[in-house]
C-alpha cells in the first residue's frame, strides 16, 4: 500500500524515483508500438514477398542461416522478423481500435445506466449478464461466419467482447458517485444531464477506464490471435501473429523459429501490457484494486 501512495503523490522534494514497475514492462510495449508505427522503415524485408527456394532457413545464430534474415524464414521463405514487425501493426491497430470502441460504448452505457437507474438499468444489467454467460469465441465465430472475415468486422466483434466489462464497472461506480454532494449540487444548480455525466462524473472515473482499457488491449491481442489462429481473423497474406503461429504449428519440429517468435511476441507484449496496467492502476486509482481484477 505504501508504494501505491508514493505513486499517487510523488514527493518532488525527495527527488525523482523511477517507477521501475512501470518502466520495465513498458519497454516491450513501446517496442511493439514503434514497430507498428514505423513498420515500413524498420522491417528489413517485405512481409509478403517470399522465395520458395529459401524457405525454413534458421535464425542467424544457427548454421545455414541466410544473410539479412536475422530470425530465419517461414514456410514460404518470408522474413520472420519482418512479419513480426508488420504483425505488430495489425495486432495493435486492431486491439487499440477494438478497445477504444468497446471502452467508449461500454462507458457511455455504464454512465447512463448507472445514472438513470430504474427500468433502463435493469435492462442493461440483464443484457450484460446474458453476454457474460455467452462463450465469446463462439459468438465471434458466428458473427464472422455471417459477415465474413475482415479487419473492420474483427474490430467490431472484439469490441463486442470488450464493452461489457467497462459498462459493468462504470455503472457500479456511477451508482455510488451520483449520490455524492458535488453531483447533487451540480444537479441542484440546474446542470443538464449530459453536463453532469460528462463534466462531473466522467472525469472522476476516467482513471478506472484507462486502467481497464490497458488490460483490455492485452486481452484483445490474445483474442485476435486466437481468431486468426482459427483462420477467422486477419486474412492471408496479411501478417498476423496468430495466423503465423497456426501456419507454423505443423512445422514446429523442423523449424521451431517459425512458431516460437510470434508466440514470444504475443506473450511478451501482453505480459508487458498487463504489468503496465497493474502499475497504472496502483498509480492512478489504488481504490479499485479489487474491482478491476
Amino acid at each position, binding site marked *: 500500500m505504501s508504494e501505491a501512495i508514493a505513486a499517487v503523490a510523488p514527493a518532488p522534494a525527495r527527488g525523482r524515483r523511477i517507477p521501475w514497475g512501470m518502466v520495465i514492462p513498458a519497454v516491450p510495449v513501446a517496442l511493439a508500438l514503434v514497430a507498428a508505427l514505423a513498420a515500413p522503415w524498420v522491417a528489413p524485408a517485405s512481409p*509478403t*514477398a517470399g522465395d*520458395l527456394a529459401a524457405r525454413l532457413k534458421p535464425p542467424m545464430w544457427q548454421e545455414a542461416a541466410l544473410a539479412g534474415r536475422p530470425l530465419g524464414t517461414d514456410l*514460404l521463405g518470408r522474413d520472420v522478423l519482418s512479419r513480426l514487425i508488420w504483425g505488430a501493426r495489425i495486432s495493435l491497430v486492431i486491439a487499440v481500435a477494438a478497445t477504444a470502441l468497446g471502452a467508449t460504448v461500454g462507458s457511455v452505457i455504464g454512465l447512463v445506466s448507472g445514472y438513470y437507474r430504474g427500468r433502463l438499468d435493469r435492462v442493461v444489467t440483464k443484457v450484460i449478464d446474458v453476454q457474460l454467460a455467452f462463450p465469446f469465441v463462439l459468438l465471434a465465430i458466428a458473427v464472422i461466419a455471417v459477415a465474413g472475415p475482415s479487419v473492420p468486422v474483427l474490430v467490431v466483434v472484439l469490441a463486442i467482447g470488450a464493452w461489457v466489462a467497462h459498462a459493468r464497472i462504470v455503472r457500479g461506480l456511477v451508482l455510488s458517485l451520483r449520490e455524492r454532494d458535488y453531483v447533487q449540487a451540480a444537479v441542484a444548480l440546474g446542470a443538464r444531464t449530459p453536463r453532469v455525466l460528462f463534466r462531473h462524473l466522467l472525469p472522476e472515473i476516467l482513471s478506472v477506464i484507462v486502467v481497464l482499457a490497458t488490460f483490455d488491449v492485452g486481452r484483445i491481442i490474445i483474442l485476435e490471435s486466437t481468431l486468426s489462429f482459427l483462420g477467422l481473423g486477419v486474412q*492471408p*497474406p496479411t501478417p498476423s501473429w496468430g495466423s503465423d503461429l497456426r*501456419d507454423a504449428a*505443423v512445422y514446429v519440429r523442423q523449424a521451431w523459429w517459425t512458431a516460437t517468435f510470434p508466440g514470444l511476441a504475443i506473450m511478451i507484449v501482453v505480459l508487458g501490457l498487463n504489468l503496465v496496467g497493474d502499475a497504472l492502476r496502483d498509480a492512478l486509482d489504488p481504490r479499485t484494486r479489487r474491482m478491476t481484477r
Partner: protein
Amino acid sequence: MTSSWNRRRFLAAAGAGTLAVAARPLGAQGRSQVVISQPADATTMDPGRSTQVLTVNYFANVYDTLTRWDNTLKLQPALATAWKAVNETTWDVTLRAGVKFHDGLPLTADDVKACYDRILTPGKTVVTAGFATIESVQVQGPTALRLVTKKPDPLIPVRMAQMGGYVYPARLATDEGVKELARKPIGTGAYRFVEWAKDDRLVMDANREWWGWDGKPPAVDRVIWKPIPDDFARLSALQRGEVDVITNVPPDQMKIVRTLTVPATRTVAFAMNATQPPLADKRVRQALHYAMDIQSIVKNLYAGQGRAMSGGVADTDFGYNPALKAYPYEPERARKLLAEAGVAGGIDVALYAGSGTMVNDKQLLEALADMWSKVGIRARVEMVEMASRQKMVNERALPANSLLLINPQSTLLDADGSLWRLLHPTGLNGKYWIGSQPGQRFHDVMEAARYTLDAQKRRELYVEATRIVHEDKPWLELFQEVVLYGASKRVTLKPRADYRLLASELTLAR
C-alpha cells in the same frame, strides 16, 4: 488449475488405453488385425451418397462392383465375369455364379438391377452423372443382365468399375432400405461390416467366402478404421505403433515415417471463372501460367511429390497427351502477354480455397499470389470454410475473375471421367469457359469421343481436345498428385493410383 491437471491426466489415461488395445497386432484368438487411419470417418456407408475419396475407401472394402481395376489399374472381372457388346448400344453382362452377400443370401441379377435403377433415377444418388449414358438395365436370367445405352458408349466396361457402381441387396435399394444400408452396410466384398462408433472406429472382418481370395486365406482377419483428422496426431499414432497404415501423409513429413508413394489419378488445379474480362482473354490466362513457377511450388511446398502438367488429363488416364508440357516459368513473357491483351497495368483476381482441401493449401495460394505480384497480377487470397466451398462448387457460384482450388480425381481412368466431367457444360468448370459450350470445337470433339467405339479414333480426338486445353487454358493447371501412405514395417502394401485402400491387398510380416 486442478481441473486442467485432471483433464490432462484423463487424456493421458485415455491415450494409454487406446495404445494398449491397438498395440496387440494379434487378437485374442491369434487373429491378425490391422488398424488403418484416414483423416476422416465415413460420412455414410450408403455408396450412392458419397464420392468423397476417403469415404469411398470404406465402401470399396465392403462392396464390389461389376468390374474392377486391379492394383496396376488394369480392368478385371469382378461380380461380372464376362461382358460383350451385342450391338452398338446393347451390352450383355454375365454375373459370377455362387456369390453370396454378407447376410448369406445369394447375389442375383435382380439385386444389380435394383442398385443400377436407383443410380439412374435422378435425385436418388450423387453418382448419377457417371452412369447417365445408360438407358435401362434388363434382367435376362439369374446371372444374366443386359445394359442398353442411349448412344454408343465405349466406356460401359469401365463405368461398371467406377465409384457409385457398388452392389448391395435389392431389398436395401429402396428409400427405406438405404437408410439401413447407410448404417449397417451389406455387400459382397472382401470385408464385412461389424460395428461402427462414429468418428472413433469402424470395424470390418474378413469375408472368408469372398470370390476374390483366389484360394488363399485372407492375410488380415480384422480391419479397424480409426479416423484421426490432425496430420500431426496421425503421424504420431503411426510412429507409436497405435496404427499400421495412415493415408494423407503431408509431403513435408515423408522422412519421419515409412512412406509409400505412387503417382495419383488426381490432379490439382484452380477452376477459373473466365466469363468476364480480363480473364475472358486467352492471353491473360496464359500469362497466369507463365508467371507461376510450378516447379518451385512442387519442389518446395510438396517435397517434389507432384508432376507439373498441361492439357487437363493425368498420365494414368486414357487420353493423356505426352506431347504437352507445363508452361515454363517466364515472367517476362507473362508481362508481354498482359500488355498485348491491353492490361499492361496489371489485373485483379481472387484466389479461393476451402481450408483443408489439401496439404499446404493456404501456403499454395500465398505463394501463387506472391509470384504473380511480380508481373502485376494482384491476387486476393480468400480461405473459406469447406461448407462455403461446397456451396460454391454445387451452385457453380464462383465469382467472375476468381479461381478456386480443386483436386479432382479421374472417375473412369479416361479423359471422359476427368476432362469432360469437369469441362462439360454442366461440369464444375464448364459454365465458366466459352470453349465448353455447344458449337465450340472443344465441346464437339469431346462429345464425339464420348460416343466413338473405335479406341484409335477416340485417342486422336483426345489429342486434339487436350491441345485446345493446353492452348486455351480454361483453368489454372498445376500438377498431378502423388498418393502418400505411411505404413508400419509389418505391413506390405502397394498404394494404388486411384487412392483405393483395399485391406484385401495388404499382407503382414509374421
